[in-house]
């Protein structure tokens, strides 16, 4: 087997084994109903994680995604309930705002030569603060468009429901896979993550690509915010708190190297599903408390980082600095 596919295979194997173990205890988990809920409940996380995958492959990090999701839900709620716009118009405005936000962060990272960590940290404060300034309270969204969306689904064999937002997540993942592996932008991202200097020497437009990467991440976070708003029918400035960490964890568990230059969008999908599995198992078990989710995800994270080290120390002993400058 191709050596570079090993972490992906390892993640997928562990997911299948964990799923089988869970099914052996709770046979009810083996149904398309549970699978459909997996997709619906983790849709916003998955969409944000696709953007995060691109950022991490390029060697950066985006701490602002959770805050952008929160901001988008509030913005949409304000536009629909207070301004009276149609949800689709509100969605378009929200996507444009988040794209602009990401472009500004990318430009700051490139032109000011600051670590992405700090720029997106500022972005996180700005988006959360901006959302609270718009409305510190939760705003419920009542619109027939929302009820229509939440009622429509595709019936899968076995009674499972593929909801609209679950479908959006799958579409985003397919889009991400094509973008990463079949487009010029995708190869630029990998090149940047491998080594920025050599990428620039090879003719990669570093400035444009950096801005596009963070634009993509923020736009997808905006889309995740739309999905979150459809999922909860509300806008709240503190929603999706800490989602950036879940997204980073999903990306790492999916086999993407945090040093950049290597990773798979498909792996992130497995990472998201694995987190969903942990949560669903805890719900099914009933006796385990919710804090076990965090502990298990932390342990999984540790295991996968360890695994990556073992796989990669054998093949490529390259040392990289933590901060991209």
């Amino acid at each position, binding site marked *: 087997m191709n050596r570079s596919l090993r972490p992906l295979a390892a993640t997928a194997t562990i997911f299948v084994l964990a799923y089988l173990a869970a099914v052996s205890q709770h046979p009810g988990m083996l149904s398309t109903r549970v699978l459909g809920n997996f997709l619906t409940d983790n849709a916003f996380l998955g969409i944000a994680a696709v953007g995060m995958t691109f950022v991490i492959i390029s060697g950066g990090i985006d701490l602002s995604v959770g805050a952008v999701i929160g901001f988008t839900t509030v913005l949409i709620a304000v536009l629909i309930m207070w301004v009276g716009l149609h949800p689709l118009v509100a969605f378009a405005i929200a996507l444009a705002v988040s794209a602009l936000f990401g472009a500004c962060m990318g430009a*700051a990272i490139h*032109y000011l*030569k600051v*670590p992405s960590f700090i720029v997106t940290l*500022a972005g*996180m404060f700005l988006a959360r603060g901006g959302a609270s300034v718009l409305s510190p309270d939760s705003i419920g969204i009542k619109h027939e468009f929302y009820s229509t969306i939440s009622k429509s689904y595709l019936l899968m064999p076995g009674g499972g429901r593929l909801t609209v937002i679950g479908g959006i997540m799958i579409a985003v993942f397919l889009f991400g896979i094509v973008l990463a592996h079949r487009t010029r932008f995708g190869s630029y991202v990998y090149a940047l993550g491998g080594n920025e200097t050599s990428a620039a020497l090879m003719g990669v437009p570093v400035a444009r690509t950096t801005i596009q990467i963070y634009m993509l991440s923020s736009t997808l976070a905006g889309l995740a915010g739309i999905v979150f708003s459809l999922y909860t029918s509300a806008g709240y400035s503190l929603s999706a708190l800490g989602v950036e*960490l879940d997204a980073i964890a999903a990306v790492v568990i999916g086999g993407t190297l945090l040093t950049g230059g290597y990773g798979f969008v498909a792996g992130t999908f497995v990472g998201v599903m694995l987190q969903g599995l942990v949560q669903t198992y805890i719900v099914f078990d009933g006796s385990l408390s919710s804090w076990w989710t965090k502990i298990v995800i932390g342990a999984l*994270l540790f295991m996968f*980082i360890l695994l990556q080290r073992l796989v990669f120390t054998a093949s490529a002993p390259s040392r990289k600095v*933590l901060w991209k400058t």
Partner: protein
Amino acid sequence: MKRSGFSFLARPQFAALIAVLFINWLLFPGFFDITWQDGRLFGSLIDVLNRGAPVAILAIGMTAVIATKGVDLSVGAVMAISGAVAASLVVGGTASWIAVLAALGIGLACGLWNGMLVTVLDMQPIIATLVLMVAGRGLAQLITEGSIVTFSDPLLIFIGTGSFLGFPMPVVIAFVLLVGSTLAVRRTALGLLIEAVGVNRSAARFAGITSGALLLLVYAFAGFCAAVSGLIVAGDIRGADANNSGLWLELDAILAVVIGGTSLLGGRFSIPMSVLGAMIIQAMNTGILISGFSPEFNLVVKSGVIILILVLQSPLAARLFSRGHARPEPATAPRTTP
């Protein structure tokens, strides 16, 4: 290269703190009033020091970590763990000094775990500490069994709310840690070694520095500081809240270090400046609260400050600044024609 002990008074950070305090005074004329009451000092200024102490203590540990080109994201979670351990032990009937030592020990152990991941397994610090950041809060909840453990232990409450020589205990603890760590890094070779590892870890190793042991020490110290901070926060509210204790404080601590002028790329660092940074953040927090804005507005102001600092520290500004130095007083020249 010799600098006098008071050179920090000339730094822009000091001017920034004065400016923030001055604005606070404009908003609230009684800001600088300090009164003596029941054997301790009271006043907004003391309040800034007191409220800023937990972040200042975190920033002391974080400065050392960042100076080695690392970062510790887990300090907030370690705060929650240390508070949870101390609270659960005293509620279970353990002597309070043992509970305090146990909490500090747990903090050290968490720091050593981070240090092990960074040195032995050679992980990137941001990822190594992310593991504990994600799992730590879960562990803290496991210890408190999901509830807020309240206690009435006099020692723990004294750490959070007591006073010594008129100053609140958190301020005294922060001051002791500040002086102790500054002496340790400036009066011994420790600071030099930390800077050497931060600038170039392999070069430092080739120069004979046992960088592994040094990194372990630095992360353990950060964990220790986080545990102290966690004890203070728990003592302050007389309870261990695993969900909210130290939530997002790691970001405040990193921000304090950055405001203090320590580069995230490792190398030159200053612990007193980081503490000053923490005080600037807290003075802004207090200012926003007393001026009647909602606390959420704080985040917007904070992000504005980060952006300002980033622009000032960027190579772009440095180029403009050096050009300004080459031709002295370029700004005053056109002022001749009003």
